[in-house]
């Protein structure tokens, strides 16, 4: 304590406290927003009757409250799931959006409540109700040999307006938002394009072929590896934040310099 006591009136002490506070806030923010891991993609098993019946049991426990005992939906509460397909269920459950925590404008991504086996079982059950796209295989979402340049063109034309050029996400109307794609697995990206979860438009195989979708996945996952100049991503939302940070940072620096230049020297009593 004596070390602090002897130095707390040092001219630089105020700045040191300020700097410490800023670092603390930054670290806290990073610990809140960072972390989280995407669900790992596993090759979907072929649905058999045992899996379907297991999925039915889980559905009755975790889903039927809102979606109805027969997955027919409830008006104004939850949509019917007959015909949505296994891919839609896998996307919603593996990203943790379903089961829903609370009704809100947008279901946030959160750690999945069901494990991989349970997820596949529910998906198999809902898929068995008829219609809808199946969960894509590992080969269908592979980015090996995909045309990243084409993927960027498609992404810029049809995805970037909501999800931002590097998949950082963005705001929509009335509290809805397009989520960031930074944690999405290739399977989840494929399923989202195929099924159009929540407000997202559907991109079926007629409009974006499976090869086109693989190109988009290659772009979205490849862009994450890009190095951030200066070491900070700043959310990767474009030049506005970068300019703001540069402006505020330089402003703070210049204010501190002005304080230093004009401050009266502590021991100088000659004036």
């Amino acid at each position, binding site marked *: 304590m004596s070390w602090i006591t002897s130095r707390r009136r040092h001219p630089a002490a105020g700045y040191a406290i300020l700097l410490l506070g800023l670092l603390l806030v930054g670290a806290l923010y990073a610990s809140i927003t960072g972390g989280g891991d995407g669900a790992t993609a596993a090759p979907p098993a072929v649905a058999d009757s045992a899996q379907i019946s297991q999925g039915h049991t889980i559905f009755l426990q975790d889903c039927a409250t809102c979606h109805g005992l027969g997955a027919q939906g409830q008006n104004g509460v939850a949509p019917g799931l007959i015909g949505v397909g296994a891919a839609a269920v896998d996307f919603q459950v593996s990203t943790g959006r379903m089961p829903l925590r609370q009704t809100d404008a947008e279901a946030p991504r959160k750690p999945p409540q069901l494990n991989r086996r349970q997820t596949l079982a529910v998906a198999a059950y809902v898929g068995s109700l008829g219609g809808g796209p199946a969960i894509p295989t590992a080969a269908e979402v592979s980015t090996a040999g995909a045309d990243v340049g*084409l993927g960027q*063109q*498609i992404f*810029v*034309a*049809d995805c970037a*307006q*909501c999800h931002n050029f590097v998949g950082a996400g*963005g705001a*929509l*109307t*009335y509290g*809805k938002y*397009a989520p960031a794609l930074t944690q999405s697995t290739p399977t989840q990206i494929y399923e989202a394009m195929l099924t*159009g979860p*929540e*407000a*997202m*438009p*559907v*991109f*079926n195989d*007629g*409009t*974006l*072929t499976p090869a*086109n979708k693989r190109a988009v996945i290659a772009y979205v996952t490849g862009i994450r590896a890009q190095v951030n*100049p200066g070491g900070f991503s700043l959310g990767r939302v474009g030049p506005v934040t970068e300019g703001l940070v540069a402006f505020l940072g330089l402003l703070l620096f210049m204010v501190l310099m002005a304080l*230093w*230049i004009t401050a*009266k*020297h502590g*021991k*100088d009593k*000659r*004036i």
Partner: protein
Amino acid sequence: MSETNGPGEPARGEDLMADLAASGQPAELQGPHRIVGTPAPAQARTMLAEEPGDPAADRELPADPEDMVGAKRAEHAVATLFIISMLAGLGVIASYVIFKVHTVNNVRHSNLALGLCTAAAFLAMGTGAVIWVRRLMPHIEVTEQRHELRSTPENRAAFAKTFEEGAETSQFVKRPMIRRTLIAATVPVALAPIVLLRDLGPLPEQSLDHTVWKRGTRLVVFGTNRPLTPAEFSSPGGSLSVIPEGYADNDDALAKAATTLIKFGPGILQKPTVMNWTVDNIVAYSKICTHLGCPAALYEQTTHHILCPCHQSTFDAARGATVLFGPASRPLPQLPLMLNAEGYLVAQSDYHEPVGPSFWERS
């Protein structure tokens, strides 16, 4: 020519010169605290040379700082910073020579090195100067009275005489031909910048009224350039950016012709959507916001909202893209669609009204 004081004026800086001469005197005359190896301490002196007859200055400039050891340390710090500044300055030259700039990555490295060296050079020099001022120079406020700005009557008369003499001897007055041709020569030079304003034109005339869409132009997917059939674009809730076929590389054309294609489930599209311009519940709206021309393409399939990201204008895609919210004053224009003989989606015609924001001559 450097010292041209008038006979009546005292030479400024005479006192200073005297002081400088004094500082060269033997050390024992300068005071008892001289440290070996340091410069001779300056003597106290009046701050400004006074005009004869002015009252004597009431403040004196202190000589050396009291803390000579601290001053020595500050001197070293300043010198170190100035050396750093010098090295950084040399670093700027070195980085310019070392880094080649023929690829993007090399340009980045070159810019980084040049910027860091330049910043270090100026920062170190400025920091050194501030330390110098704060630690070594005396902290004393000096008020210097402003002199009268008006010249003396003698100087003013002399200037007028010189001007008249110049006008006479240059024969500017006597030879009107030279005078007038010189004036004539300056006029076009002054007009030239005004003529360059022509580059603000030409006026857009009719070019904003039309896009490149015309009867039979196929809609192709922006990015992959594939034409579309209603069977392919069949999932309700689908939305795509489409462009007229053959204009993928024509940015001028796409700036007006970019279009959003939306597929609805049966029975959702309502008036004032023009139903004759839709095919199988597929409707096409201009992608250019009617407010300020941003790409309004944030389509939500649940609410059928089209949102413009710039100013949050919101359009109802199921009802002819009428404005629900925001500063846009008109719906997004609807592109008339039909099928051609091969079953592809094509335009019936151009948009029936100018796309994008309002402009002066918009009818």
